[in-house]
């Protein structure tokens, strides 16, 4: 379906719908918070019942999510030693390879046996669907890296990590998307990187994106789209079909492992409907994790965990941050949204609507690493993190567009619209309201109780129940702490035991973080959207020692 995935150039009716859906998430969040505050004051009995019902739902959900966090982490662990390149090459001789894989595994390692079993199932599915992939030598990668003010060292680490994907680097085109407004030293730095690494790739493009092109805002999507268009010309010139190109949009600070592109290629080949799919790795924030304040470490590890949990539900998974997709699909949908800040999730919704719901995100069992925001000082980092989270939470700008798209699109099944719409709405409202409800409002009926209510059994039960819930949640927190320790890169320092303890204790900052660096920026973003005060793209402060 042709749908203008933008809040601009709308008809009067579309403007009304757009504004209605822009107001809805913020209104819901504020209503939840203030409504429960009001209930606590005027109808504490009703508020207490609501708090109990809400807290119970939250704790069950927490346990439910923790299970999937462990499952997702297990998946990562299982595939940790997988030789993706061997699988990619193996799939080039599909039938022989399938027969070999179907033989009983001799591996003693349980992980390897599970991985091999899952791999065999995937291959059988491909065969059954007659969706055999192209030969791996015919699959190319395009990596678009937007640059506006990033230091050369940050981008160089990114490019170097891609170059380290040895065999596949030769099938990779790097497109550095540099904003024309970037300062000369930044541009010079990019030119130097191109000079150093050009030989290691199929091609190395530097595309300078002019400011103020019609229909564009000063956002990352405009820059990356401009570079992708230039790359499209490159592929056209060489007669490389877009169907055989996987485009990856990497944040400038992204660092991938040496088998990342092998895993991505495998994911692409293994996906039956690979032209209607995005590929989402697990973003971790390990590049500078030991150089930032503890709270920032917790914030970003939390983000990784959230993404880990999300990947267990591919039916509702949405692209986030650095991601990959079929280049054909990207071209068909008209590239990334050029007037949205949240182009990472925006491109999924754009494609989902364009392909009438026949579009999915395939989780990749691999990680890529990015920088944690670091402004150089404790308070500076707090401020920068707040801004970054607000930018992420600005993803709520997708909601009105998606809802308008759903109303306009008659081909997407109603159930799918409901499922996606609900998740998008609930996800944002929960993000903004839940920590406030948990941290403050849950206690309000007890605190603001008058004599009448404070002499009821419910008054005592509600506070006891809230305490019990927090006790139980600490169990989930303990699980999270353990997993964060597993996931962390080793610290290159002595006294690692001490650091392990310190990092474990850092997790007790969660209540503060949830309110001030998660809920508050989200509520801020939703309130801005409610009042039509659009955000400007803000590049996070990142530095590398």
């Amino acid at each position, binding site marked *: 379906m042709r749908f203008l995935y933008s809040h601009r150039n709308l008809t009067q009716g579309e403007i009304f719908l757009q504004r209605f859906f822009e107001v809805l998430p913020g209104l819901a969040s504020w209503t939840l918070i203030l409504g429960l505050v009001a209930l606590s004051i005027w109808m504490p009995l009703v508020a*207490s*019942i609501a708090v*109990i*019902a809400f807290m*119970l*739902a939250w704790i*069950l*959900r927490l*346990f*439910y999510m923790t*299970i*999937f966090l462990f*499952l997702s982490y297990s998946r990562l662990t299982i595939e940790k030693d997988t030789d993706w390149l061997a699988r990619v090459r193996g799939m080039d001789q599909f039938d022989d390879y399938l027969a070999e894989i179907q033989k009983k595994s001799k591996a003693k390692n349980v992980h390897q046996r599970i991985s091999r079993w899952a791999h065999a199932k995937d291959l059988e599915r491909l065969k059954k669907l007659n969706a055999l992939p192209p030969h791996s030598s015919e699959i190319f990668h395009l990596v678009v890296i937007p640059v506006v003010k990033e230091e050369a060292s940050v981008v160089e680490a990114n490019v170097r990590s891609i170059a380290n994907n040895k065999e596949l680097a030769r099938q990779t085109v790097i497109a550095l998307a540099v904003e024309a407004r970037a300062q000369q030293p930044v541009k010079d730095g990019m030119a130097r990187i191109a000079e150093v690494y050009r030989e290691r790739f199929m091609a190395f493009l530097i595309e300078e994106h002019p400011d103020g092109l019609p229909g564009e805002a000063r956002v990352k999507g405009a820059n990356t789209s401009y570079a992708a268009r230039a790359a499209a010309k490159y592929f056209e010139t060489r007669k490389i079909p877009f169907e055989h190109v996987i485009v990856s949009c990497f944040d400038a600070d992204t660092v991938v492992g040496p088998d990342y592109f092998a895993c991505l290629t495998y994911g692409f080949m293994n996906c039956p409907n690979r032209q209607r799919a995005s590929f989402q790795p697990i973003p971790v924030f390990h590049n500078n994790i030991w150089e930032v304040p503890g709270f920032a470490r917790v914030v970003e590890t939390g983000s990784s965990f959230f993404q880990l949990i999300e990947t*267990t*539900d*591919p*039916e509702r998974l949405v692209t986030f941050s650095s991601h990959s997709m079929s280049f054909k699909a990207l071209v068909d949908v008209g590239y990334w949204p050029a007037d949205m800040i949240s182009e990472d999730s925006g491109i999924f919704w754009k494609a989902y609507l364009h392909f009438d719901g026949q579009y999915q995100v395939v989780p990749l069992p691999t990680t890529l690493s990015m920088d944690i925001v670091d402004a150089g000082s404790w308070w500076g980092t707090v401020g920068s993190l707040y801004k970054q989270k607000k930018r992420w939470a600005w993803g709520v700008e997708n909601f009105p567009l998606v809802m308008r798209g759903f109303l306009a699109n008659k081909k997407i099944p109603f159930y799918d619209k409901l499922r996606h719409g609900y998740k998008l709405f609930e996800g944002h409202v929960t993000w903004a309201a839940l920590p406030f409800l948990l941290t403050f409002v849950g206690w309000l009926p007890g605190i603001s109780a*008058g*004599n009448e209510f*404070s*002499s*009821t*059994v*419910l*008054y*005592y*039960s*509600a506070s*006891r*129940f809230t305490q019990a819930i927090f006790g139980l949640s600490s169990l989930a927190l303990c699980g999270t702490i353990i997993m964060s320790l597993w996931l962390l890169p080793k610290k290159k320092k002595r006294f690692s035991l001490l650091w392990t303890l310190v990092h474990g204790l850092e997790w007790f900052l969660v209540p503060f973080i949830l309110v001030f660096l998660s809920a508050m920026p989200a509520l801020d973003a939703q309130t801005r959207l409610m009042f039509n005060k659009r955000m400007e793209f803000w590049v996070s402060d990142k530095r590398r020692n």
Partner: protein
Amino acid sequence: MKILRKVLFYFFFALYLVLCPLIILYAFGYILTPKVQEGFVKTGLVHIETLPANASLMIGNRRYTEKTPAIIRNLLAGDYDVRLSVRGYRPWVRKVQVEPGKAANFEKVLLLPQRLKVKTLITSSFKSLLPVPGTRYLILGGSDLVGNVKVFDWKNESVRPLLPEGSSFTSAKLIRVFTAPESSWVLFQVKGPEGILFLGCSLDKDKPDVKDLSALFSQGEPREIAWEGGHPDYLFALYDQDLSRMDLEKMTVLPTFLEKIRGFGLFKGKVYALKGASLARLNFNAKPGDEAVVEKGVFLENLFQGNGKFKIDFISNKAICFRGERGELFSNALPYRFVDEGVEGYQADAGGRKVVLWQKERLGVLDFEKPERKKEFFERGPEIEWVVEKGQHIRQAYFVYEGAYVLFCDKDEVFLSRLGEREIPAEGLVAVRENSAIFYSEKTGKLYYLEPSRGELVAADILPEGITFSGMMSEIEKETQGVVK
């Protein structure tokens, strides 16, 4: 994964559907009991907090392992005997009615020792004790002579004579002591060979510092003298219907600062006066005639009928009390007229939220901030909760344990009564010297009084030793305001 996700989702969803109503029912007090035919019954609970904590708890015939503070849940409706006990303390026994879905709440239960711990502070014999409101000083009179007056600092437990050695006022006879809230400056009216004298004295000076201010009182003996602050600039003296202003620095008197008034009070640098049936206000340093009428109207005319005199007390920013010469007690809060006659004194709590007031035989508490009862046909204000109704001669009262108890002196015996338990007799604590005053400090948790037989100054621990409400020093000391009327 998809199937697992669905299975787990439905499992957790089903768990929620089952648990949520069960927990809510439990939260309301419902339990499933095999002893009762109905199966599900709605229970109540008892919540008890004591000082000292860790009291053993017995409800009905059951001894609980929980120690106070404790919440005992799942009690079937009915009457229970609740008994608290701590070794060395008097047992606390109450009959408690447990209602379904309700909590019987006993917060701030003060357990009294079997024998109060009493410490002698000064072995000399005294006849009278006068707390200086809002300060740490007690004025102790050994005889009628000023030379025998001692000043006791209860915070440091130190004593010194009021007059310096060799003072010419030593042999003067003490007639009256004027004090003001939170002022360590005190005015003594004495009778010397030269006649009536007025001596001002700062009690907080290291050395006794007495100044003769008799020259300011050439008009005679005022009915009332008031001032504001620890080192006042002005004194205000009421002579019949005229208020004089005395400038302590210039030693001058403005005899007609306010004329034809029925009473006055001071608050934050302003004099408030009842003139006829209207309330006037003017600054301490204002000129006569500058007064502004703050409030007047028919309702004030109805309230302040006649020509009776009133004393105005600012209990807090919001609450003002008017005490009439016949013992009337009015307030600016609904229903304005609280007691028509016989109020002998009152004492505000630390926050100025409530006052304990007493007549000769009755003692009650007026809570200005008690929430209004809803769904009443008529709008109502606070009401006096009478705690004691059969006293002999109640003379003084203090709030104890953050306002949960009232300690009062009836005739020459001190009692303690818990608010809200009118039917329970007050507990007798100690006997005091005939007609002497008492003082209670929440800061130290001690009752200061004169021992009945020898007249020694002693202190009895009312709160357990070591338990004080720190950070409330100034607030608590205010409780001494207006004790002796």
